[in-house]
């Protein structure tokens, strides 16, 4: 808390203090609002399968029982919600509850160690992260309604974000693991905002523009989602690649309103295509395929389905789930990790203290107040480029500090992969360091 207070004083001394105070007040009110809503009288109905048709703004009650937190998934309908239990997870957990159940943190830490190979561990973690995902979706929906554009509703946002769980788990460093939920909340929110922005682009662009502005990764996913077989997807990707190489905007102002290649260019595209692959295809066919691809991109709204639970390549790797905390070694490891976290936080706190006050203020506003870069630019009367450059540099300095310490104290070799982890650790720590006490509490289990 000391850091938070210090920053707060720093800000009040600043010229922008008045506006800031209002922003802060607003944020506090939002947080309080979430809190009250979270304690909605329905909290008795928390158990699986109950569908409650209640009007907005009802929120699903918090799951109290630790085991429920690892076995149930939120099912959000248009005007209702329900916690649904995955029997397989319940059975799995039940096996180990007969022995002395370790604390929630130890379970989480245990699964974080093995989720990549252990399909059940991954599912338990996804279940565990339902609340932060829900609240991130709710916040994003508010943001969308404030005029960010896009037409996503809460249920869709929730689905989209859950799909990103793997990336979030991948980035999260369990060795710092004080608060996975708090970290995931921020990360989910960023994913959703990103998605909303992409969707806005999709809505504005013509089919031919959309095809140029889509990444290969996204197109591949969209075509899969569209139900096309892999061989067809391969073909479409080839046509798309040729199209994107050959057909370019003739006026830079019209990048979103492209009308497609002319007959001469279609001939060229088809010649290139036919040189790469057989059977050959006529321009009209190629054009048709690309329009199908554009439609697939438009229809592609990632959905998290139970299919994702049973990724075939993971199924074979399922081992018998080992209960955590049973071996003294694991307890020791958990303790070591906690010690590591304490030291790491100390390194970062020192590095942070050495940053110039203006940079600390920037971090406080960004991570603490949750202001967007545009809002920051307006508040500090700088342009957004400057803000983003300064944020990058601040984080860079913390990465340097953490890197030097990891290298000197822990003999960790600095590679691009490690840098990625260090960057994520810095983000995670900044998020937690600046998050207000209320927000932290929001995602912590009641014990």
């Amino acid at each position, binding site marked *: 808390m000391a850091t938070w207070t210090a920053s707060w004083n720093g800000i009040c001394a600043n010229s922008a203090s008045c506006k800031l105070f209002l922003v802060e007040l607003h944020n506090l009110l939002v947080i309080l609002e979430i809190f009250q809503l979270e304690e909605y009288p329905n909290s008795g109905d928390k158990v699986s399968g109950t569908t409650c048709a209640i009007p907005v703004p009802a929120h699903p009650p918090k799951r109290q029982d630790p085991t429920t937190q690892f076995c149930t998934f939120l099912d959000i309908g248009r005007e209702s919600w329900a916690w649904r239990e995955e029997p397989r997870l319940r059975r799995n957990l039940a096996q180990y509850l007969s022995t002395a159940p370790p604390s929630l943190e130890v379970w989480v830490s245990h699964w974080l160690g093995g989720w990549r190979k252990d399909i059940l561990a991954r599912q338990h973690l996804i279940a565990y992260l339902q609340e932060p995902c829900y609240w991130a979706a709710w916040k994003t929906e508010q*943001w969308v309604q*404030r*005029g*960010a*554009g896009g037409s996503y509703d809460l249920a869709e946002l929730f689905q989209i974000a859950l799909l990103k769980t793997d*990336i979030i788990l*991948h980035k999260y460093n369990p060795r710092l693991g004080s608060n996975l939920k708090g970290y995931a909340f921020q990360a989910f929110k*960023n994913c959703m*905002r*990103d998605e*909303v*922005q992409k969707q806005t*682009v999709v809505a504005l*662009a013509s089919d031919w523009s959309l095809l*140029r502005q*889509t*990444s*290969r*990764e*996204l197109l591949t996913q969209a075509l899969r989602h569209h139900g096309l077989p892999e061989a067809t997807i391969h073909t479409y990707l080839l046509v798309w690649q040729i199209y994107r*190489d*050959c057909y*370019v*905007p003739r006026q*830079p102002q019209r*990048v979103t309103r492209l009308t497609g290649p002319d007959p001469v260019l279609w001939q*060229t595209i088809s010649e*290139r295509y036919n040189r*790469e692959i057989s059977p050959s295809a006529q321009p009209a066919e190629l054009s048709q395929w690309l329009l199908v691809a554009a439609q697939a991109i438009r229809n592609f709204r990632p959905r998290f389905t139970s299919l994702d639970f049973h990724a075939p390549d993971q199924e074979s790797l399922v081992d018998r789930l080992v209960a955590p905390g049973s071996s003294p070694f694991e307890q020791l490891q958990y303790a070591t990790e906690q010690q590591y976290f304490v030291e790491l936080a100390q390194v970062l706190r020192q590095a942070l203290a050495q940053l110039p006050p203006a940079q600390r203020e920037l971090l406080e506003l*960004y991570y603490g107040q949750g202001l*967007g*870069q*545009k*809002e920051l630019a307006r508040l500090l009367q700088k*342009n*957004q*480029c400057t803000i*983003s*450059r300064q*944020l*990058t*540099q601040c*984080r*860079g*300095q913390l*990465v*340097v500090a953490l*890197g*030097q310490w990891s*290298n000197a104290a822990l003999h960790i*070799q*600095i590679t*691009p*992969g490690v*840098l*990625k982890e*260090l*960057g994520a650790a*810095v*983000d995670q720590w900044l998020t937690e360091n600046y998050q207000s006490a209320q927000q932290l509490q929001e995602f912590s289990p009641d014990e």
Partner: protein
Amino acid sequence: MSDSASTFEDPTALFFEIPALLQAKVWQTHTVLGDSVTHWQAYLNDLTLQVLLPWVQAYDAQAQVMPQPLPYWTVVTGTALTVAGQRWVLIPAESDDLQVPQEWVDIPQWRADYYLAVTVDLAQHQLRVWAWATHHQLKTQGQYYSPDRTYSLHELDLVTDLGALWAVTAGCLTLDEPTLAPVPLLPVLTTTQAHSLLQRLAQSLLPRLEVPFALWGSLLAHGGWRQALYEGRQGLPEQWSLPQWLRGGVSPLGQAWGWLQVSVLAESRDQEVPKATFVRPLQILNQEYELRVLPLGLGWRFQLRPVLYAGQIPTGFVLSLWTEDQQSFAGNIAHADAPVPVLYIDVALEPGEGIIWQVEPTPAAYCQEILRF
């Protein structure tokens, strides 16, 4: 309190605005480039460089762009820079994709320490640097996509954190893994091979995918042939023929590269009074020198001399001449074993023969050029 849809919230990415004036100006600059694909490619590359250059120069005020970018801009996506002794390649794209053209990875001289993924959102006038990778990563973890000859990394392997890039470039953190991975040398093309490739690729819409990569890469790696490819595709007349320069003055491109024709008076004390002298200013180790090429009775003389009156060329400087396909020949090297007022080489040449000159230490912004005789 309404955020526009274009707000980039990610603290790990770098955000830039594209000024409308700059956008229009860069577009205009390249309208002379014939076909639309070439125009677009040069436009996107140039615009990205113009927007990012001030940021790059904040890292290193002396940052250098790989010289004569237009010939490579028109055929490959990307711009190479030397920043604080390291090589960066900016890879612009219209979507959130990092697909690195094979040229930047597998041409040994073109490899870079860091590849930066840049998304150019023209509709919103925004540019975002959102990820980076090392050459080592691309070669060891990357996937190669043959239809487009690009390398890419899985989302989980890309470092989507520009703070981390800052840490290892501007900050004082050092990578414990090499940034570069070894790549095999490309075959050396003969002049005949190169000329036939140049002819074949002059009309092609996407020359980079037209011939096997080894041939294409070798052609492109050669500054003189890269320039010839560009000129051929633009339908320009011969620009580098010194006999032609003698008749009609230095060509427009020759002038653009710094060549001048000077008065012959300075040479009048020589026994043979030359008809004309072509001069190109050079900057070597922050000192001014000039390369002079002058016709002799039966051949040509190449001279390297300091600009300063009574200046000396320091010990260790080397002037060398090479055939068009970079082969040596008898007497092609002049070495300064002690400080000398001038280094020179006389050569007898066949009509139409091409010569590449080279100076060590390498002059600033040096790019191989083929002079024809």
